[in-house]
């Protein structure tokens, strides 16, 4: 049960957005700008970064919901998501994404451990400033969203099927930006 009296029928972060709409509105707009706004990273790649960081943080709600959104975005290649997040297999990612994932992981652990060499490796694989910026901010933002959800013990459905329509909606409609 959540630590605060949110609507018990609404899962995850949505229940928190409804509880405090003054903060829910900018939190939704940020997610929309990050994951659906302009970026050299595809929407699928950005949802994958969100899933990867949430999984590293062991936030079940964010991992399951963004994995569902990422699978929807990848379409016929949906199994890439499970390969990367659950099986540590990045074979089907671009060289650029393979170099950005370790940066996201270091940001998750703590921003200070990202090195010049990590960034250079991403540049050598084709990343431009904006790829690096967006990777760092997505990873940082999910360190916020994951803590917000688990810090308040928001309702986390255990049935994977519950996340399928949620992921479809997130992928198709975005986050209310």
């Amino acid at each position: 049960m959540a630590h605060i009296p949110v609507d018990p029928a609404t899962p995850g972060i949505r229940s928190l957005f409804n509880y405090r709409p003054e903060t829910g509105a900018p939190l939704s707009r940020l997610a929309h700008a990050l994951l659906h706004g302009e970026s050299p990273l595809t929407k699928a790649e950005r949802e994958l970064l969100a899933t990867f960081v949430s999984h590293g943080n062991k936030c079940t709600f964010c991992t399951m919901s963004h994995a569902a959104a990422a699978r929807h975005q990848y379409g016929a290649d949906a199994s890439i998501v499970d390969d990367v997040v659950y099986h540590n297999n990045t074979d089907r990612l671009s060289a650029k994404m393979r170099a950005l994932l370790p940066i996201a992981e270091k940001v998750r652990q703590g921003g200070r451990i990202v090195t010049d060499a990590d960034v250079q490796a991403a540049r050598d694989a084709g990343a431009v400033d904006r790829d690096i910026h967006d990777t760092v901010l997505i990873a940082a933002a999910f360190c916020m969203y994951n803590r917000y959800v688990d810090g308040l013990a928001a309702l986390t459905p255990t049935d994977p099927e519950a996340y399928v329509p949620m992921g479809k909606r997130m992928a198709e409609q975005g986050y209310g930006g």
Partner: protein
Amino acid sequence: MAHITVPSGLPGITGLLESRLDTSAPIRDLTQFILRGPNTLTEGERELIATIVSAGNACTFCTNAHAATAARYGWTRDEVDAIVWDPTTAPVSDKVRHLLIMARALQRNVQGITADMVVAARKAGATDVEIHDTVLIASLFCLYNRYVDGLASDYPPSMDYYEKLADRLTTNGYERKGLPNASH
């Protein structure tokens, strides 16, 4: 030197927020509301939460900025430093002490807040909204700290910069207001 080119050349979070406005607008709006909006936690108490999380994440820019700002609200800078070092003996109310302990636990571990911590905070007088806002401020600074350090944003030229920043944050708050010359 920063990992990416920051067009404004401004140090710390300020330069990053100026480099991408579609994401910085909601980040600023959220910060303005949660740190300066109407609240039963004082502005100073909310700045202490921002400071304890930033110190725990060893984010030099954010710690200096928010410690300088917190020190404008009734504590000396030495007291602020002592509070973030060990909140269990902090010269604050029982309620705020429990909220600071929750913030630190969440900074260290995504699942770090226990039901017992929430019960203790509530017993010390914390409301549901105060518990919510503490969790959200702590979470938000886990974003800020990683954004600032993950891109190795530049440090300001001197410690005096943080005092000027504290001047702004205590008067204008966190809105953009005429940047690039403004701060934060």
